[in-house]
């Protein structure tokens, strides 16, 4: 069964979600991944949205982190402060992030390309990203374009903290201990971080993608373990539910 890069990426992200956990969901791919996960792998996943939605049914795909679908038949409809404070208190396990640039420590840039002011390209800004990256126990970055322009040695602006400059750096600046980047899902592969060095490490390539290809498209030295897995292509069930139930209007896929 044929599938698109985006569909694969969504399926790989969805498979990362544990059941019976909380996940801080941002706009776009994470919403599809969470919705797909809820329908197949994690029926009791509690999706939490920035502006107050907690544990909605996710029958219909939200178009924004504050829209009415983020709290339709939800457990609670609160406000942004309660959500962010719940994360700051340590109640949110997973957090999803994105950005224009990422470095080997998982630091992300979604603010500016070039100097800060005036910038070459003005990007949206942090929004909740910095908070999610600061508070959630494990963050998962979604990068739709795995190339040297986006996976760089030095990002132009650290919008959202990854492991910053390496081991112990988060704790040193005052961020909550034992938190930080967990996975990166791209159009080429699934990546993680090496326990000791906190540096990005290849975990598994997508079907048909070679390890070299991932290395060539990464602008910093990527840790390659002895064993690199290969991600399963989307199953028929995944694709059917994704296309017919999660995103029938084809807003994202």
């Amino acid at each position: 069964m044929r599938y698109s890069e985006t569909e694969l990426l969504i399926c790989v992200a969805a498979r990362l979600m544990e059941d019976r956990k909380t996940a801080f969901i941002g706009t776009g791919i994470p919403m599809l991944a969470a919705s797909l996960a809820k329908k197949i792998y994690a029926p009791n996943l509690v999706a939490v949205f920035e502006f107050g939605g907690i544990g909605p049914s996710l029958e219909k795909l939200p178009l924004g982190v504050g829209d009415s679908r983020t709290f339709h038949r939800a457990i609670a409809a609160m406000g942004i402060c309660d959500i962010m404070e719940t994360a700051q208190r340590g109640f949110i396990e997973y957090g999803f992030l994105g950005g224009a640039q990422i470095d080997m420590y998982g630091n992300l840039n979604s603010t500016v390309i070039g100097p800060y002011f005036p910038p070459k390209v003005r990007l949206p800004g942090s929004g909740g990203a910095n908070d999610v990256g600061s508070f959630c126990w494990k963050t998962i970055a979604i990068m739709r374009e795995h190339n040297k322009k986006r996976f760089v040695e030095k990002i132009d602006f650290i919008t959202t903290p990854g492991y910053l400059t390496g081991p112990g750096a988060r704790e040193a600046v005052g961020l909550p201990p034992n938190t930080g980047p967990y996975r990166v899902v791209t159009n080429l592969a699934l990546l993680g971080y090496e326990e000791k060095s906190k540096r990005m490490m290849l975990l598994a390539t997508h079907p048909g993608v070679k390890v070299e290809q991932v290395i060539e498209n990464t602008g910093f030295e990527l840790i390659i373990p002895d064993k690199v897995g290969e991600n399963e292509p989307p199953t028929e069930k995944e694709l059917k539910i994704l296309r017919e139930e999660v995103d029938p209007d084809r807003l994202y896929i």
Partner: protein
Amino acid sequence: MMILGEGLGELFCPPDPNGFREWVHKNKDLAMKEKVMDEKTAIATFVKDGDYIGTELYGTVRAPMSLIRELIRQGKKDLGVAGQGIIEIDFLLAAGLVKTLDITYVAYEVYGISNILRRAVESGKVKTTEWSNAAIAWRFKAAAMGVPFLPTRSMLGTDTFKRSGAKVVECPFTKMKVCLLPALYLDVGFIHCHRADKYGNCQIDGISGFAFEFARACKRLIISTEKIIPHEEIQKYPEKTIIPYYLVDAVVEAPYGSHPGEMCYCYWRDEEHLKKFLEDSKDIEKTKAYLDKYIYGVKNHEEYINLIGLERLKWLESQIGGR
């Protein structure tokens, strides 16, 4: 508890709890009196050039769009603007009314970045200071609490902090490092709610966004509401009141006031309209044409509603989810 770090960002609106108290005592009428007026009067009476303003919730969700359109018609300029936004901030930027921006996020979520923001900031016309989304909300919360700052554990170690107006100190109880956010008081705030009585006691359905904190951080607060309800309805369910009358200076009745954004349990967002504007916004002339047609080209919200068409709006009502 000394200062271990300071953001380089300019504080466009420094905290002053005593100043706010004195201002409230001198200017805020605590009497429960009728405050219903049209949007023209509300904006003309309570907003001046150079004011620092803000809106709640955001662009596509329960946003005070009818008030923003009137603000632009009246051309109130050199504004300082706080926060999180989409189309409402784009409107203000496109109209050239914004001088400074305490920014956390301006873009279109699934539809990507804002071309209007890009033109405004990349040209150096609009000055920016960075904050996280929680940081802006907590700055309102500090003001709402009547304290000069709130501690948080966000923004630490990042360039977002470096370009903010926050400070890092050591906690005198735990010795841990915390980021202190200065309270953010607004000259004028705009909130669109589901129901309000004529005095300004307001009810909101669904998520509250940051309405609670924001309403309490404003010197002047202009409310637009889908519906004006009898005071007795407020008294019957006092726990539903999120904004008490004494915070409010004007109540404007504005059905479909959040269009093209959504209003939960009332009407869904106007996807076609939003996509069209996003397309237009890529081009300066087309952006101008949009403003001419939908903002400058109508006298008030009533004309705007007629321009959009009741048929369209009724259809949007049919598209929103129920309870």
